[in-house]
């Protein structure tokens, strides 16, 4: 005899089992990297999962490496990420708001074109971008920011979907209360979309933080490691050290762990904003 509650327990058990297996699968590589970053080695690649000898040397090494200016990379990346996140968030949120709230003649065609354009991967444009930026003499961090911000407007779909859920009658009420379009946006639209702004800021911060392709093609021409961003710099540690790669492997791993820290902290802090639901109470309920 299988009772309903037993059935539920069994199904719950399997669900948790599956989740546990997946969690382990996903956590192992991360754990591996973290452990490797603490492991002492002078021979090259680390061959054991758990360090045979614990050390902080890799972390000290990556920050004091004379050949690879890791600190510069972090500062560069932080600069690029913060500037482009700020600009991209503003652009993306405003574009989304406009497309959600205002009605204008080419709105529909624009939405369709944006959808189609969004289906092409961004790196398709890299050759063209390279030549454009070269022509503008902007194969530097400024050009990189331009590339990241330039495409921000097209990422409006998620935010637009969010704005669409805010009842239009709120806008109308504010309009009758005497608000201008801009005031409706800043005093009603924005405060209600905090979760969306946080989400947008996070994604637009993360993209430059981890991007390798564009930083690679745009920054590689300068040949000056001090202008690199983290992803491209770290790649260089292994690829350009000419047979010496193994010597830097442990430092490379430590470098990877360091750049993961800010994103992780950001996520933990911003997590609560993901819980939307502040629109509750606007309508009947």
């Amino acid at each position, binding site marked *: 005899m299988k009772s309903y509650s037993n059935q539920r327990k069994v199904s719950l058990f399997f669900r948790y089992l599956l989740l546990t297996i997946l969690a382990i699968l996903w956590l192992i590589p991360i754990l591996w990297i973290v452990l490797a970053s603490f492991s002492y080695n002078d021979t090259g690649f680390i061959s054991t999962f758990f360090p045979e000898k614990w050390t902080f040397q890799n972390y000290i090494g990556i920050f004091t490496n004379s050949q690879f200016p890791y600190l510069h990379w972090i500062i560069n990346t932080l600069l690029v990420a913060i500037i482009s996140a700020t600009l991209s968030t503003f652009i993306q949120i405003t574009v989304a708001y406009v497309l959600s709230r205002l009605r204008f003649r080419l709105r529909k065609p624009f939405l369709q074109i944006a959808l189609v354009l969004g289906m092409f991967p961004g790196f398709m444009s890299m050759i063209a971008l390279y030549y454009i930026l070269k022509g503008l003499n902007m194969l530097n961090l400024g050009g990189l920011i331009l590339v990241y911000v330039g495409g921000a407007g097209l990422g409006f779909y998620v935010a637009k979907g969010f704005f669409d859920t805010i*009842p239009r*009658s*709120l806008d*109308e*009420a*504010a*309009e*009758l*209360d*005497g*608000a*201008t379009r801009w*005031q409706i946006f800043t*005093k*009603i639209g924005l*405060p*209600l979309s905090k979760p969306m702004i946080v989400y947008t800021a996070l994604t637009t911060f993360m993209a430059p933080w981890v991007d390798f392709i564009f930083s690679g093609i745009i920054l590689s021409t300068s040949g000056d490691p001090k202008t690199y961003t983290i992803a491209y710099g770290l790649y260089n540690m292994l690829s350009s050290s000419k047979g010496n790669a193994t010597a830097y492997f442990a430092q490379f791993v430590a470098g990877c762990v360091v750049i993961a820290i800010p994103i992780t902290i950001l996520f933990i802090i911003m997590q609560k904003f993901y819980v939307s639901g*502040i*629109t*509750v*109470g*606007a*309508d*009947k*309920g």
Partner: protein
Amino acid sequence: MVKINLNHIYKKYPNADDYSVSDFDLHIGDHEFIVFVGPSGCGKSTTLRMIAGLEDITEGTLEIGGKVMNDVAPRDRHIAMVFQNYALYPHMTVYDNMAFSLKLRHYDKAEIDKRVKNAAEVLGLAHLLERRPADLSGGQRQRVALGRAIVRDAPIFLMDEPLSNLDAKLRVSMRAEIAKLHQKLKTTTIYVTHDQTEAMTLADRIVVMNAGRIQQIGTPKEVYNKPANQFVAGFIGSPQMNFFNVTYKDGYIDDGQGIKLEVPEGRAKVLDAKGYNGKAIVMGLRPEDIHMEEAFLETWPEAVVSAKVVVSELLGATSQLYMNVDKTEFVGVVNARDFHKPGDSVKAGFNLNNAHFFDKETQVTITD
């Protein structure tokens, strides 16, 4: 306080084939409480939104206080509006919700505080000022929405089905509160509803609409007692007016199903004069004009039909009896003492002095 003139206003949405509102012509006086009533999609909300400026006017002119307002922005029309879903700003406290419009208009702090506190006092919200809309009940939210309109001190209130999200009991008490508020503030109010009870109880004048057109404008008494056409007669009043498809001939109406009654002399004269003798017409009779008390049946034995009860509903003081005579069905509201069970055979007296007669083709009321 102001007068509002709606001069032959039309509304056609882009891509729509037909007009949503046609030839809406209405002149609203100072302090008036006007109710637009009609079934869903009749254009009443659209008209209200055109007055507010939330919809463009396709044709015709809207004048408020003597000035043409067609192209004036909503915020400059000095109109306060209460929305069906309240439209409270969820991220603001009750206080801030009410103060929002005043802040936008740069009133000084003391004045804002005075007005908000005042409105909160009137609406019994004083203890809720620091709460957010999410922490309020439906009735309280409705009050805040009203409060937001009151603090503005706007000369015109627009209300778009403000009570339709409330439960039945709350609706009745809020209705009374809105009536009280209007007596106190005397603000010119336009109120949209599909509920004829709200229209009857609140309005100075009712505008009955159907399919984008005004059917009748009149006081509640007028639209109830002298409906302009069959639509108004059927829409106003609950339960609905009974309609009988009858033939009028020589002072008698006959529905061919067993209802054959003499038309009172005065009414018959009008029908004769208008040339309806021998023609098919529609007779309307309100449920309360169907009688079952002995006194009526004995006094007017010629106005009595034998009917069968199909459904009976006891409402306490009255009972509603759904009856039929052959295939003709009608409902009567009678004293609870005259309650009958389904299947009972009853005698029903038709008070034809209060009957309404409509032209079968045009559905317009036949009057003298």
